[in-house]
């Protein structure tokens, strides 16, 4: 097993500090966007399409304007000249269809919930009531709900004449090939082909979306429950034409995002335009059902996957053909999500050849976009499921098959078939530890006993040895992938006269605990008390430069920027300290926040004393400025690659189809750990979300394109009461691509757990002949799979 190198002066980094954020959050001293009050503030409610697809034939808002408390009411046509088109920053191919996406529909609606009109009133009740007075008429058009039907000849079109090659719902085709795929498959002893469905998911962050916008002269302040204040400001300027320097975006306390707040939304654009039109502050907060319908969804792919292998289990090649449901429009990174997955299908395995093709498909549903993992969970699911099936096909233990194919720890850095260079990893160590903690052999023995005795409760074991690409992202690579921005991050470190420290970060925390983790890093680097560090973020005026928080990037990229800014502060401090101590710079040592002259007993000078001297500026060395402050922008050279081994045991009640999680062991390698408590929290939450996809959650639409699961009563988000005690542990193989050695942990649990759980259920049901199950594996689906398999076995027996 590998361990972290001893970092100098480490006592904060690696320590399970309680989060600085929590006392305030837990006691309700919070500043959610919906808590923000402004003098004279008006409230906005949106009228939304009840049709998945329809032409708007008339809108009359005049009666709504007469309702009590109503100040204004507008249709899409009222903003047609200024609302622009919601941005897509990731046109994955040159010929990708990029239809106009007006924030409020003008002529046509293409999903249920699309905004068609709005009311602005003195309170939110009056606004909601007045929606009923808007007179709108539609001419319904055919809904396009199913991806394969959408691609069939003669399908109704979501966008007339704007699909790839026109007259089609095909938005783009993104191909990738490496190696000789044909010969890899032709010479194979075993070829398996499977179709996996990634059901559509609803991110369901705890805090609903909310936006407040206040006009300030010719400028605007916009508060939003967003993950991306910096990107949002830029995009609002580009969409509306309001100059960037006249827009200030603030992300106050934000209660979770999971990618759903990595977006530029219709409501944010319209809040800005309404504030400009009415010269008053406006607020809009979604209801839970509104959020389910109109906050972007995640996943929704059909994956046709083939794997070729030799009889001894060596993998030769992999073919992946994806259909990815874009929904009705291209939002911020809609088309990029499945394309990002292209690099992750080969997982941790060596192989000779790989081909990938992704077809983006328009349907009349809410657009999809980033959701925790964004392309990587989908890819990991497919490879981990089919590798397990391959093991079954050739009669090998699924862990053994993985051992035969994975990159061994001596082989790093390793450039895989998809072109990524994995800098570090130790799959053997993580797997050995996981199997030991899990009690793999004992559980296999129990499984055999239950099978032999025909126990109505069967046991299954699932394996997931995942990796993911994190630390998004090298700007150069993003450019090659046609992404519209870079992947750097910025930080500033300010030494105050009293020796306290302000850290300004471009990362935008929305639950991750950045304030605590950044304080730990800075405390160690500068040798100041943890309590003396204040972290500022989430406001384009306070932290003017940043690329925000998503893709497990904050610690890896933003944290590194903090480290580099600290290094620059120390560089300046060292010069001044040498001057103060009348010593040569090279003779100074810096330990625990104190400069001393090497080899002497002369008194030390603290970094705080140096900060005060810089502020006073009474006696500075030649050419020095009266400040120790420094900033840094870090652009990673490579992604980071967390990995781990997750093992899941389930008990399946074959009489009812109920699945009980018996044991779950996760051994993750996320590199250097700054705060183990925060990492555990990320893993636990990630597991819950990945398990949710396996067992509970699915956004279901009816044939007319209505979202049937539009409340938390129908869309089942599991709670702690549904989950087992997780056994978690870590191996530490530091990343070599950033000075912290960190790899990112925000998405690992979600990416790893889904195939482990489904693999375990299938494993439990193998004696019945079950090879796969559609997610979510609800009791009813499991029961039917057993019943169908028994029926098939009976009729097969009858034929013999």
């Amino acid at each position: 097993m590998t361990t972290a190198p001893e970092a100098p002066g480490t006592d904060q980094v690696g320590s399970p500090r309680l989060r600085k954020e929590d006392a305030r959050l837990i006691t309700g001293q919070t500043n959610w966007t919906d808590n923000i009050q402004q003098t004279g503030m008006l409230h906005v409610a949106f009228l939304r399409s009840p049709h998945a697809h329809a032409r708007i034939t008339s809108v009359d808002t005049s009666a709504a304007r007469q309702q009590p408390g109503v100040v204004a009411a507008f249709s899409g046509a009222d903003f047609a000249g200024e609302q622009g088109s919601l941005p897509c920053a990731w046109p994955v191919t040159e010929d990708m269809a990029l239809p106009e996406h007006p924030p409020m529909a003008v002529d046509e609606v293409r999903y249920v919930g699309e905004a068609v009109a709005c009311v602005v009133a003195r309170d939110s009740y009056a606004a909601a009531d007045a929606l009923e007075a808007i007179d709108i008429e539609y001419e319904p058009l055919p809904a396009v709900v199913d991806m394969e039907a959408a691609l069939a000849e003669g399908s109704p079109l979501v966008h007339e004449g704007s699909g790839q090659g026109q007259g089609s719902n095909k938005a783009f085709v993104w191909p990738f090939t490496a190696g000789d795929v044909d010969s890899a498959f032709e010479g194979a002893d075993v070829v398996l082909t499977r179709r996996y469905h990634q059901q559509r998911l609803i991110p369901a962050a705890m805090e609903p979306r909310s936006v407040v916008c206040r006009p300030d002269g010719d400028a605007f302040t916009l508060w939003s429950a967003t993950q991306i204040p910096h990107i949002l400001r830029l995009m609002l300027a580009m969409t509306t034409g309001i100059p960037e320097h006249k827009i200030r975006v603030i992300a106050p306390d934000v209660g979770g995002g999971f990618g759903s707040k990595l977006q530029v939304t219709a409501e944010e654009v319209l809040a800005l335009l309404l504030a400009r039109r009415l010269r008053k502050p406006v607020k809009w907060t979604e209801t839970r059902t509104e959020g389910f319908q109109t906050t972007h969804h995640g996943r929704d792919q059909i994956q046709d996957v083939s794997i070729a292998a030799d009889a001894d289990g060596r993998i030769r090649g992999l073919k992946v053909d994806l259909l990815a449901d874009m929904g009705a429009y291209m939002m911020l990174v809609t088309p990029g999500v499945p394309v990002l997955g292209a690099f992750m299908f080969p997982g941790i395995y060596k192989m000779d050849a790989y081909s990938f093709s992704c077809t983006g498909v328009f349907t009349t549903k809410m657009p999809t976009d980033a959701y925790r993992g964004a392309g990587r969970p989908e890819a990991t699911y497919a490879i981990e499921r089919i590798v397990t099936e391959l093991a079954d096909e050739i009669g090998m233990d699924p862990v053994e098959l993985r051992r035969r194919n994975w990159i061994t720890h001596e082989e790093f850095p390793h450039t895989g078939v998809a072109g990524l260079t994995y800098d570090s990893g130790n799959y053997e160590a993580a797997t050995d530890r996981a199997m030991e903690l899990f009690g793999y052999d004992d559980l296999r023995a129990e499984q055999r006993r239950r099978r032999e005795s025909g126990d109505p409760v069967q046991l299954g074991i699932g394996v997931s040895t995942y990796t993911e690409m994190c630390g998004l992202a090298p700007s150069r690579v993003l450019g090659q992938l046609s992404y519209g921005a870079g992947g750097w991050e910025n930080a500033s470190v300010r030494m105050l006269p009293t020796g306290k420290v302000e850290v300004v970060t471009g990362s935008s925390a929305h639950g991750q605990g950045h304030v605590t983790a950044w304080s730990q890093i800075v405390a160690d680097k500068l040798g100041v008390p943890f309590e003396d560090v204040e972290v500022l973020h989430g406001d384009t005026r306070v932290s003017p430069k940043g690329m925000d928080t998503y893709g497990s990037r904050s610690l890896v990229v933003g944290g590194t920027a903090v480290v580099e800014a600290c290094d620059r502060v120390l560089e300046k401090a060292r010069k001044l300290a040498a001057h103060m101590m009348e010593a040569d710079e090279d003779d100074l040592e810096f330990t625990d926040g104190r400069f001393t002259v090497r080899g002497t007993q002369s008194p030390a000078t603290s970094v705080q004393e140096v900060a005060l001297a810089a502020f006073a500026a009474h006696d500075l060395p030649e050419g020095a400025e009266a400040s120790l402050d420094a900033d840094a922008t870090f652009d990673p050279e490579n992604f980071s690659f967390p990995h781990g081994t997750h093992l899941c045991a389930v008990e399946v009640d074959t009489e009812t189809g109920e699945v009980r999680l018996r044991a779950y062991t996760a051994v993750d390698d996320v590199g250097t750990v700054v705060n183990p408590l925060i990492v555990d929290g990320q893993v636990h939450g990630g597991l819950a979300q990945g398990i949710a996809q396996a067992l509970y959650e699915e956004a279901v639409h009816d044939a007319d394109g209505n979202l049937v699961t539009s409340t938390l009563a129908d869309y089942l988000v599991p709670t702690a009461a549904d989950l087992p005690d997780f056994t978690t542990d870590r191996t530490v193989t530091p990343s070599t691509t950033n000075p912290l050695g960190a790899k990112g942990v925000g998405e690992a649990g979600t990416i790893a757990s889904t195939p482990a759980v489904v693999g375990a259920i299938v494993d439990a049901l193998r004696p019945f002949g079950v090879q796969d199950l559609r997610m979510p594996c609800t009791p009813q689906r499991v029961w039917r799979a057993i019943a169908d398999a028994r029926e098939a076995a009976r009729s097969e027996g009858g034929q013999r």
Partner: protein
Amino acid sequence: MIPAQFDYVRPGDVAEAVRVLADSDEPKVMAGGQSLTPLLRFRLAYPDVVVDLSGLTELRGVTDDGEWLRIGAMTTHDEVMNNPMVAAHCALLSLATRTVADPAVRHRGTIGGSLAHADPAGDLPAVALALDAEFLVSGEDGERTVPASEFFLDYLTTALDVGDVLTAVRFPKMGGWGFHYEKFSQAAQAWAVVGVAAAVRRDDGTVTEARVGLTNMGSTPVRASEVEAACRGVPARLETLREAAQSADAGTDPPNDLSAQADYRRHLARVLTGRALAKAAGI
């Protein structure tokens, strides 16, 4: 929550509540508010007045009424499940109430509100039906008692008229019986896909009597009468009770919805009834 506009009245006694209800066009009674609030939030209910019974302290609490336990309609789930008299004389109600939603809901939600809401997916209606509970109602014409078998009329529909207030529910004391509530739900805090409320009385190795109520197997709670008949006099063994449970879905009309199709619910009713009977019989 942004409901449509309504008036709000909090009466000081039952008579005032009855008067207000009778004088309103479309009133809604609010007990703990755990079912009514979602209806208001989704604008599925447009009451002109909400009559909040939380001021009627006389409707709260459990009293020993000789052969019966009388439970005030405004008694919260939490109070019911922690009440020693309920545990001693009517443990099935304690067991089922423990499965209702989550602690926050159980601290506000009430037994009367839950029964008057008459959601067939709710846990308590099947219990009241299985145990032959009686509903004490105050209305414009005075007080009356409605047996459980006549109380649940249809989906979210009971024998309560617009001007009626459910004041209490009484359950017969059932000494010597064994009980079990078998709830099958997709997530810990979700509604029952199917639930089975079972009460069994044994004479040594023989089942002398059984009562079975089913949750979410129709538009009202359902009494599994065929199972009850099949249990009478059979040996108290797992196989015989499972056999008796094979008719659990007879006469039911289970819904097709997102969580389950009707055929799966019928299957579940049979399996879960067998399990519930066995546990109630102490097997």
